C-alpha cells in the first residue's frame, strides 16, 4: 500500500523539514494504482465437463495478506449466492480489479436473463467478457481471466483472456504467478505434447500421440499435481486449493489444503 503514493524522496523526519517554501524545487509525485496479489489459476476442459482451479493465497510483495481469498467465482444464477449458476470465472493478478470484473460480469449475465428470459450461453458470456475488458483498454483490469462452462452441445468449454480482452477457446490454460511452471506440464499431460507412438518412425517421422479428452478423475489428479508442484517452487502460491467441477448437473466446489509455508 505504501508503494501506491510514493514520492521520490520519501523519508522520515520533521514535518517542517519538508514544508514547501517559495524557494522549493518542484516535486514529482507518482501514483501507481495496481498491486500484484500473486497466486495462480488454471482451467481444463473435458468431453462433458470443465474444471477450474486456483489457490487461495493473497500476497503483496513478500507478505501474505490472507490464506483464503478465492479466485474462482460463480457467474449468473439466482441471487447473491448465484444459485444454479453454470459459468465460472477465475481471475488472477490485481484482486481488486478481479473483484470489480467479477461483479460487472455477474451483473451483466443476470441482467441478460432478466431481459431475455433465458440463461446466457458460455460463448455469449465469453464474448461479453472480452468486451468488458476491452472497454477499459486504456486503464485495464489488471487480471488474467479464465472463463469455464458447458457449451450448447454439452461439451466442456474454456476461454482464456489477456488483460485487454483478447481471448481464445482452449483445452487447458494456466494463468498467474506460477503459469510458467504449470503450463508446460499441462501441454505435456493434457495435450500429450512431445508424446510419440513408440516405434512409429525415427526423429521427425515419429507419429505424435493425438490428444483425446481425459476422464474427470484423471484431470482432477492432474490439477492437484500441478498445484502441489507450483507450491513447492513458487512463494506466491499456497495455503488452499479451490476447485470447481462443472458438469451438466451443475457446479461442484471443492476446497483442499495446500502447504502454508
Amino acid at each position, binding site marked *: 500500500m505504501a508503494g501506491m503514493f510514493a514520492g521520490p524522496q520519501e523519508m522520515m523526519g520533521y514535518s517542517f523539514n519538508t514544508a514547501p517554501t517559495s524557494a522549493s524545487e518542484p516535486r514529482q509525485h507518482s501514483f501507481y494504482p495496481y498491486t500484484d496479489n500473486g497466486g495462480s489459476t488454471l482451467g481444463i476442459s473435458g468431453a462433458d465437463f470443465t474444471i477450474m482451479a486456483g489457490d487461495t493465497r493473497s500476497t503483496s510483495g513478500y507478505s501474505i495478506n490472507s490464506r483464503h481469498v478465492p479466485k474462482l467465482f460463480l457467474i449468473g444464477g439466482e441471487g447473491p449466492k448465484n444459485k444454479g449458476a453454470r459459468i465460472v470465472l477465475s481471475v488472477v493478478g490485481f484482486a481488486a480489479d478481479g473483484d470489480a470484473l467479477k461483479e460487472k460480469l455477474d451483473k451483466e449475465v443476470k441482467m441478460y436473463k432478466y431481459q431475455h428470459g433465458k440463461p446466457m450461453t458460455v460463448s455469449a458470456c465469453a464474448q461479453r467478457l472480452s468486451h468488458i475488458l476491452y472497454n477499459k483498454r486504456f486503464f485495464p483490469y489488471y487480471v488474467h481471466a479464465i472463463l469455464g462452462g458447458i457449451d450448447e452441445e454439452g461439451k466442456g468449454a474454456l476461454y482464456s483472456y489477456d488483460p485487454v480482452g483478447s481471448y481464445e477457446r482452449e483445452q487447458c490454460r494456466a494463468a498467474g504467478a*506460477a503459469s*510458467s*511452471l*504449470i*503450463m*508446460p*506440464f499441462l*501441454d*505435456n*499431460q493434457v495435450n500429450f*505434447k*512431445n*508424446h510419440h507412438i513408440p516405434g512409429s518412425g525415427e*526423429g*521427425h517421422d515419429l507419429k505424435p500421440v493425438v490428444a483425446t479428452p481425459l476422464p474427470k478423475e484423471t484431470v482432477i489428479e492432474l490439477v492437484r*499435481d*500441478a498445484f502441489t*508442484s*507450483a507450491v*513447492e*517452487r513458487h512463494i506466491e502460491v499456497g495455503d488452499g486449493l479451490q476447485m470447481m467441477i462443472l458438469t451438466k448437473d451443475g457446479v461442484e466446489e471443492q476446497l483442499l489444503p495446500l502447504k502454508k509455508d
Partner: protein
Amino acid sequence: MSSPFSINGGAAVAMVGKDCVAIACDLRLGLQSLTVSNNYPKIFPYGDVYLGLTGLATDISTVSDLLRYKVNMYRLREERAISPQTLANLVSSSLYERRFGPYFVSPVIAGLNHKDGKPFICGFDSIGCIDFAKDFIVSGTASDQLFGMCEGLWEPDLGPDELFETISQALLSAVDRDALSGWGAHVYIIEKDKVTKRLLKGRQD
C-alpha cells in the same frame, strides 16, 4: 531482456535416478529473438563428470575452456580423474574468484561418485554458490518451466530408461514454452560403467 543471462538463451537440467544420473541441454543459440545456430550444445564432459552451462554464450565457452584446462592440470598433477564433488568445489571457487565481475553462467554438474558410485548433481549461481539437490537441478532461460516440469514428473529411484524418458519430456515440454530455448536437445544418461548420449530432435521452431 538485456540481462546477459537471457541474450543467447538456452536451458539445462540434471536429475538423479537409481544408481544413475542424467543431464540434458537444448541446442539453440540466439541473439535476442534471432536464432543464430540450432546446434550449440551446452554440456561438456570432464572425464566421467559432466558440466552443463547456460547463460552468456561467450562466457559458456570461456568457462568450459578454463575448466578443461584446470581439470587437465588436476589429472596430470594428481594422476587421477577428478570426482564430481571435487569438480563442484573447483567450479565454485573458480566462479567466486570473479565475485565482482562474474561470468554470466549458471552451471549444472552431474556424475557418479568415484568411491561409492552414488549419484551426484549440483547447480550454481553465477558467483559460485552451490545448490546440492537430491532430486534435480534446472538452469537457463526455461528454468521456471523446467521447475514446473521436474516437480511434476520426477520421482525417486528411476531406472536409466525411465530417467531418460523423464528428463527428455521435462526438457522438451519446458523449452517449448520458452522462446529463447529449444531446437532439439542432447541427453546424457550416466551409469556405473556406461554413458549413453542421445540426440533429441524436438520442435524446430
